[in-house]
């Protein structure tokens, strides 16, 4: 008779020294793991709840600027620096991690309408519409060497915005038209205009060096090739587009922030309708910025909120608001796509996390693994009603919540009316128009 008894050697189960990690026995046999789907679901639910527990995106306020802020401009190469422009003509230079003001300049006598950095040199430009000047300031060792500008240019139009080319020594000023200036020449190198209304903002495409996009006051979006005399296309929208931003990773994608509370992303190859309509704000969207990854957007709105979006998804991923934050006029991503700087009408710049529940600071490998697991679990059970309701829910102050309900009611009423009309008149007379096709009046060539 052969007898074998199960006997374990304790040495196989104990760690060798106190510096070792504990040994963990593993047996993947499914008989030892009943209810694994339920356990996973509970873990996904806990992951969703913990994400909400740790969602504290507000990092701090940069200190009172003293007057309403009009522009924010991030440094193109340094992570920790940014500029802000004020309506009383002051330009401030901020250290983002310390949230302290390094320097303040009395740049202009009126509202600072444009701010941009030179991509390579330690130089930034500012322009103002009241004194009609464009000034260049040199910065070295995070201090302005002279409190006077390096150069100053008087313009014969009132500039409304300013953008610098990603590599060439060109910059685009928007005023009554789009003017292309070379830094070495006094006269504009190019000028584009369509219609009689002023151009609010013009921006260079970071990849296609000859391409410019501009938004005008008469609700139009212009596409300009600097090698041509006339703009390429004009898209007539229903409402005014307040700001625009090119996708840094996808050369043909741009996003605009509109007065009709939406953001639109456009494919420059097919401008007949926007590629995506981002709905969520309850008042005009004032500014839009793409993350450096090209996958996310941030929008600043007149309804005192900042919303974050995933590119291509029309519902916002997150919404930031504070009791003290009033109308938000500018929002910018930091270069590492982890932080957002907003400028609002309550005279403050604020710093936020792009991922509200992200832990700032080094993650140990176990922490990273736990974070990744939690993320994967939430995605796996994202459709599940209990998990979805926790992941989607965001607290809104009462008036914002009421505004949201109002928008919902208005939309519902419009839809119902359309359905009734279609039933009454017939589908041929009242065809179904998809959301994307409702916002463009026409495209002109």
């Amino acid at each position, binding site marked *: *008779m*052969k*007898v*074998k*008894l*199960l*006997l*374990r050697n*304790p040495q*196989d*189960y*104990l760690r060798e020294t106190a510096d070792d990690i*504990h040994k*963990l*026995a*593993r*047996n*993947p*046999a*499914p*008989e*030892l*793991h*009943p*209810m694994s*789907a*339920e*356990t996973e*679901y*509970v*873990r996904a639910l*806990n992951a969703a709840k913990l994400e909400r527990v740790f969602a504290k995106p507000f990092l701090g306020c940069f200190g009172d600027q003293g007057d309403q802020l009009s522009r924010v401009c991030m440094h193109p190469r340094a992570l920790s620096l940014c500029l802000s422009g004020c309506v009383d003509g002051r330009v401030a230079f901020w250290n983002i991690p310390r949230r302290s003001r390094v320097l303040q300049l009395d740049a202009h006598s009126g509202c600072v309408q444009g701010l941009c950095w030179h991509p390579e040199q330690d130089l930034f430009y500012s322009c103002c519409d009241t004194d009609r000047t464009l000034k260049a300031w040199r910065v070295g060792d995070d201090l302005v060497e002279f409190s006077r500008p390096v150069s100053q240019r008087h313009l014969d139009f009132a500039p409304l915005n300013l953008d610098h080319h990603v590599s060439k020594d060109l910059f685009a000023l928007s005023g009554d038209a789009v003017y292309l200036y070379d830094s070495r020449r006094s006269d504009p190198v190019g000028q584009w205009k369509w219609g009689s209304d002023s151009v609010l903002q013009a921006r260079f495409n970071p990849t296609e060096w000859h391409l410019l996009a501009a938004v005008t006051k008469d609700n139009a979006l212009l596409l300009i090739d600097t090698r041509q005399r006339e703009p390429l296309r004009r898209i007539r929208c229903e409402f005014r587009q307040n700001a625009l931003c090119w996708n840094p990773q996808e050369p043909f994608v741009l996003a605009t922030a509109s007065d009709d509370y939406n953001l639109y992303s456009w494919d420059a190859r097919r401008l007949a309708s926007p590629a995506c309509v981002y709905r969520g704000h309850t008042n005009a969207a004032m500014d839009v910025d793409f993350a450096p990854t090209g996958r996310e957007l941030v929008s600043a709105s007149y309804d005192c909120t900042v919303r974050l979006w995933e590119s291509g998804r029309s519902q916002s991923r997150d919404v930031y608001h504070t009791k003290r934050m009033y109308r938000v006029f500018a929002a910018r991503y930091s270069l590492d796509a982890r932080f957002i700087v907003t400028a609002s009408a309550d005279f403050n710049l604020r710093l936020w996390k792009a991922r509200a529940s992200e832990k700032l600071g080094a993650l140990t490998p176990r922490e990273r693994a736990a974070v990744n697991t939690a993320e994967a679990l939430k995605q796996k059970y994202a459709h*599940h009603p209990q998990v979805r309701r926790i992941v989607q829910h965001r607290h809104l102050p009462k008036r914002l919540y009421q505004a949201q309900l109002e928008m919902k009611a208005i939309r519902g009423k419009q839809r119902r009316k359309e359905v009734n009309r279609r*039933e009454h008149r017939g589908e041929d007379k009242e065809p179904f128009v998809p959301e994307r096709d409702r916002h463009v009046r026409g495209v002109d060539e």
Partner: protein
Amino acid sequence: TMDVAAEDSDQMPSGFHAKAAAKAARLRREAAKLASAAALESPGGIESRPGEWAPTQSKLLRRVAVAARPGHFELSLQYGPYSVAYDTTGRLLALCGRGGHVAAFEWRQKRLMFESQVNEPCHALTWVGAGSTPQLAVAHSNWTYIYDAQGLELHCLKRLHKANKLFWLPRHWLLAACTDTGHLHWQDVSTGQTVASYCGHHGPLRVSALHPDSGCVLTGQPNGQLCIWTPLEKRPVVKILCCPAGVRAVATAPAGHAVYTLGGDSRLRVWDIRCLRPLSVSDNGADAASIRLFDAAPQLAVSQRGLLACPVRQGAALMVLPAGGAKPLLSHPSPGRLSDLAFCPWEDVLAFGHARGLGSVLVPGSGEPNPDGAVHPLSGKRQRREAEVRGLLDKLPPETIAPPAVGGGVNAVDAEGIEEALARKRAAVMALPSDEVRQFQPRRRSGKASGELNRKVGERWQRRRMELRQLLKSKKRVLAEMGDEGADAAGGRKTKKAKKISQSGELTKPATGTFLDRLIPKAD
């Protein structure tokens, strides 16, 4: 998830389901292969020559290493028939006697944790909590008490009145109890909340077992029924007739889908709890529906590897049967009449309580050799503590306790919800306001303040008329979508699809073989 044998694949509703089941089976086989490849230990067993008798304990002890000796011991105690319970790690053994003796000790080192005389008959016990802070729940004659590792009484659960069996659900942190009064209780030990406490109205529940994989309580009734209970339903969720006579004992394996029932006809039957059908057992090499256990007392215990232990000769000896077999693996005489049996998890050891104390015997091949995680006898204190915290975080809600036969589960499609929604839609469509209702005019009143009243009633009826009109419109629309010819007759517009279907001469969509077939309008 269901284990589907190859021959069951033709019973799948569709090719999609067959493929999914085949994939699941393949993944399960691969996991088993991985598990066996990575295995540290191999299971025990006895290889005997044909004609050889089942070995005695002395024979086994001569053939195994000295390290196995702690598994074989006898305790002569005086306080009545004893019940025994191992904790989930297999490190601790507790006993309680009808004479009031309650004790707990680490059986390997024979280190006594506590021993006390509670001066009350104790009927059942179970370890609760995780291995780091072990607590013992003991069912006294009236109420249930919870003792800690030092024997201090922590809680007195008055709601668990006259419990005769206690169960611990580790994944849900629930203490379940069946009582002589016919009540069932589920108590959350981590929050102290009573999840469910009700009378089953099926008589005193004296024969019960826990199905650990799903957390359901199985009870055997004197009329031969086996009932499956969950905390959310006050009635048995499933009832099957498993014995021609009354059910004398029920037992489940610590993992898996087998349920063993011992009937009044002394026959042992094995059931598959997933499909509620009998599994065949081998009786002397031949497949049989049941095994005849002569003079068996009604206690059964099943080990992790499917070995079954039962008392024979009216409790004078215990017998261990191999998984699904009738020829005993080994037997052992008991000094007193056997009252309880418990296999040690993760070890080849069986503890038995009898009228004169308790004992422990070696049973080669009963324990699962390779545990997963920190729940095994050799896990350290720190690992047990961490496992406890993880167990609390992963605590499952009581809604997940459901018998596998009933289906559902967190990843199941909510077919009933979809069906209900469709049924509601159809009902809304079919419940048309009758003509009389539509043409009704409210009675005009006269007298003081009647003008205001008439106006209000008129407005209310106007609104109701609009609602009825909407209802009629939506009914027409839905009928048109469903391709019903009645839509045309009722004057509703036909959608393009409906027109196509009616033009092709087909009134109904082809049957898909799913529950949606019930809603296809029948061609009259």
